[in-house]
C-alpha cells in the first residue's frame, strides 16, 4: 500500500505507523461520562470497506495524516495532514 504524503510524496507503508480510527473525537473532560471515555478509548468498529485512519509518517516528515482508504482493495482515496484536516473539520471527523 502506498500513501501519498502531502509533504513527502508517495511512500510505501513501511515508512508509516498506523494509529487507527480517526473518526473519534476526544470527549470534553468536564462533561464526559465513563461511557463516553469507554467509547473514545476502546470501542472500535471493524469496517469492511471505507475507513478513515490516523497514520504517522515516522520515517519521513514525522507528521500525522488522516488517510481515507478501503480495507478491502487497499485503495487510498485521500491523504491530508491531520492539522489541516482539523481546520476544515473543527467538530472532528464524522462518519
Amino acid at each position: 500500500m502506498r500513501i501519498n504524503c502531502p509533504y513527502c510524496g508517495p511512500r510505501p507503508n513501511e515508512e508509516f505507523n498506523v494509529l487507527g480510527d480517526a473518526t473519534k473525537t476526544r470527549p470534553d473532560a468536564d462533561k464526559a461520562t465513563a461511557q463516553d471515555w469507554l467509547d473514545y478509548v476502546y470501542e472500535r468498529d471493524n469496517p469492511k470497506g471505507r475507513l478513515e485512519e490516523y497514520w504517522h509518517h515516522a520515517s519521513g516528515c514525522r507528521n500525522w495524516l488522516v488517510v481515507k482508504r478501503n480495507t478491502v482493495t487497499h485503495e487510498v482515496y485521500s491523504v491530508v495532514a491531520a492539522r489541516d484536516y482539523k481546520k476544515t473539520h473543527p467538530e472532528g471527523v464524522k462518519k
Partner: protein
Amino acid sequence: MPEISKNPKRLSPLENIALPGKYGAINNETPGVILSVCPARSVVSIGARKNMEAKVSAVFKKQYALIAPKPGRSEYTKNLAVHWAGPEQWYVITNSCEEGTLYDKLAKQFSGIASIIDQSHGRVTIKVSGRNACDLMAKGTPVDLHKNAFTKGCCAVTEMAHITVHLAEIADDEFEVSVFRGFAESFWQWLTEMSLEFGYEVK
C-alpha cells in the same frame, strides 16, 4: 584517575570501521562507488513555532540571503547547507566554524520564533559519489531518484535498511546521507554490503 585531555577530539562512531581502501568487485576498473565519512561538522535543527513560518523565512532571507527550503529542497550558500527536514523544520549545516558557534548564532537570530537544537554530535553523515552512487541509494529508498525527479538541490527524509535517513543530492550523482549516531555502524554495514557489486573505495 584517568587523565583528561585538554583538547578533546570528536571521534566518529565509524572511526575504526570506515577504513580507507578498495573493496568488492573492482577488477581493473575504477570503483563504482566512493564513500567518505564527513568530518565532524555543526548540525543545528530549526523548528518554526506555531504561526511563525513567515518570520522564520524572513530571518533566513535577511541573515543568509536564501529562501527557507520548501519540502524536499535544499539551499546552499558559500558556508552553509540548509535542508528541509519536515514541515517548518530545517537542518543547518556548516564545516566552517568552531563547535557550538553555529548554534549560538542561530539561537540569537531565531530567538522567540523557532526552536533551535544543536544536533552536531547526534548525526553522522556519509558522502556517496561515483558512477553507481545513484544505483546504490536507490537500493535503499523508495524515493524516486531518477534524474527527472531528484536532482542537485533535492533532499528527502526516508528509510534505508529500516533506518531513518536524511538524503540530499549535493551535486550531480553526489549524495550526502545522514543517520543518527547510534545507527551509524549498522548503516555502514548495510551500505558497504550493498556497494560490493559496484566495487567501492573508502576515502
